[in-house]
């Protein structure tokens, strides 16, 4: 298994006004599955291409198990990459497509045949080896592409938005398949996506990128509970930000003062981050009273758009008790689930 390190990786395309990737530092532990998450154009593909050797970095280094691979051309780097389009070679049948990498490695014909059939079984397309690669459905094509990338047992496996061309139900099935195979083969993997939910469901860790820069790296939970900035919190679906002042561990806002043990000591202007689900119905002394403006039924839960001191917030409550438009909800914030991010008046 291979550990991957990216060190100050920078790519400045010639002619571009600014670098597309800036000082990117990241370590992926052996056998981990990391999701690169970020809006379109933020540089995700560029990073993958630098890891695979298809693109030379302007600056920085790529290490596999602490050794630089920057001088190694893509065909020798033992990195395999699956693109958004399945890119099945049209003049080869399914089996020949999967076996391509093995033929390039001059492996024996009968060995290739065995490996190809094993891979086909793994992607649940047993018996497809002799099919034409131009007569498959989109989901089948992408599974063949996956098999072709994995059969060479790469040191690093890269997937560039492999699911974005598939429809919703197929996407979930494929996501689970990727997860299962990755666990089975224990290959260090990076999967690019612009879908936050997909990243959370798929990955051990998420690397969030905006504008060519790594914003935050960690297990999926931290992006909900400990986002570094308002923009990150927003990307993960939080809409409630209350301006306040932090002194020590206490954040004072117009919704009250909260002492949060999860914060580091600091003196600064902050936004109190209140996830919609970080509230509970309560009549206690510290409770807040808000008027329901509208509601969205979400099955087990209901999302209420409420008016609190003249501002709109969103809270999510269980659907056991339903409030109507115009009702007053009395609730309190769950202290242990609150968080604070630096105040930034640009945003």
């Amino acid at each position: 298994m291979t550990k991957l390190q990216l060190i100050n990786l920078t790519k400045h395309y010639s002619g571009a006004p600014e670098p597309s990737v800036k000082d990117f530092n990241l370590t992926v532990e052996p056998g981990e599955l990391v999701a690169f998450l970020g809006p379109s154009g933020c540089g995700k593909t560029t990073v993958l291409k630098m890891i695979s050797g298809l693109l030379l970095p302007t600056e920085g280094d790529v290490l596999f198990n602490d050794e630089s691979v920057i001088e190694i051309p893509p065909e020798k780097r033992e990195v395999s990459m699956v693109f958004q389009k399945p890119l099945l070679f049209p003049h080869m049948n399914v089996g020949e497509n999967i076996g391509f990498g093995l033929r390039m490695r001059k492996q024996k014909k009968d060995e290739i045949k065995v490996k190809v059939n094993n891979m086909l079984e793994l992607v649940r397309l047993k018996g497809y080896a002799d099919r034409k690669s131009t007569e498959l459905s989109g989901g089948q094509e992408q599974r063949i592409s996956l098999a072709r990338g994995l059969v060479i047992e790469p040191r690093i496996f890269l997937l560039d938005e492999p699911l974005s061309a598939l429809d919703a139900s197929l996407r979930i099935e494929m996501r689970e398949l990727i997860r299962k195979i990755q666990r089975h083969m224990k290959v260090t993997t990076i999967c690019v996506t612009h879908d936050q939910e997909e990243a959370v469901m798929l990955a051990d860790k998420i690397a969030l990128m905006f504008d060519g820069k790594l914003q935050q790296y960690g297990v999926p939970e931290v992006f909900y509970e400990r986002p570094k900035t308002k923009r990150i919190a927003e990307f993960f679906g939080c809409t409630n930000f209350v301006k306040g002042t932090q002194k020590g561990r206490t954040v004072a806002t117009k919704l009250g003062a909260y002492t949060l043990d999860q914060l580091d000591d600091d003196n600064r202007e902050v936004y109190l981050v209140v996830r919609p689900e970080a509230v509970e119905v309560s009549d206690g002394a510290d409770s807040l009273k808000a008027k329901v403006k509208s509601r969205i039924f979400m099955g087990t839960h209901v999302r209420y758009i409420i008016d609190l001191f003249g501002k709109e917030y969103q809270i999510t409550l269980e659907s056991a008790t339903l409030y109507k438009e115009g009702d007053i909800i009395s609730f309190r914030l769950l202290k242990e689930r609150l968080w604070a991010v630096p105040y930034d008046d640009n945003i």
Partner: protein
Amino acid sequence: MACIKKKNQNNITRKIILVLLYTWTFVPFIPILIWSFSLRWNYPNLIPEFSLRAWKYVFTQKNIISSLFSSILISSVVTAISLAIGLPAAKALGMYKFKGKKLISTLVTLPAIVPLLAVAMGIQVVFIKLGLSDSIYGVVLIHLVPVMPYMIMNLSSVYEAYNPEFEQQARVLGANAFTTFYKITIPAILPGIIVASMFSFIVSWSQYLLTLIIGGASTKTLPLLLFAFLNSGDYAIGGAICIIFVLPALILLFGSPKYFAGTKSVRGGEV
């Protein structure tokens, strides 16, 4: 399921169209074919007297054989040259964006639209000065004028659909740049190259006027000979030459459908 059903319907429609097309193309050739195997075909006989005279004549007459060979030679050379020029030109037009691309595309297609007689008259004057008139080189050069537009238009649509990510995919799977070119790039665009070449060959093959004006008396290609025999009134021999003359077009008609496999495959999949 719906997708598969639609595909089947498409297939059936395609087959019907092909059958109609073939019929439309072949019916006119039936009398010509009969002519070529006849001694004479006089009123009121419904069926002519059978004879191999015309075919024996065609395959023994030196001037017919040699004009067949010069036709094959000229059209092959024209196709090869137009392919050599067309491949890079079409790659630029099909794959890259640049200033003035529209203008260049229009200029490239112009010779296919402008009446060739006008072009030929003008060029002949220049060719006489350069000593290219009355020579096979001149004929090859002048054939390139109507051939290039077809070649470039055909090839650039191949490149437009071709996805350069195929090459990157091959590289990461372990193919070096050279292997990638001849194992991936060439086979992927080969069907397009074949179709474009066949078209170009036929455009050159069927030139009459240009060959006559530039080639003068020295270069006798098949169409020139065909006109001569038709004028002389020997329909049997005229018919036999005519059959040979349309042969490449028929090969194209039958051979090409399998190369029109659709562009999805060269794009690398649907998105």
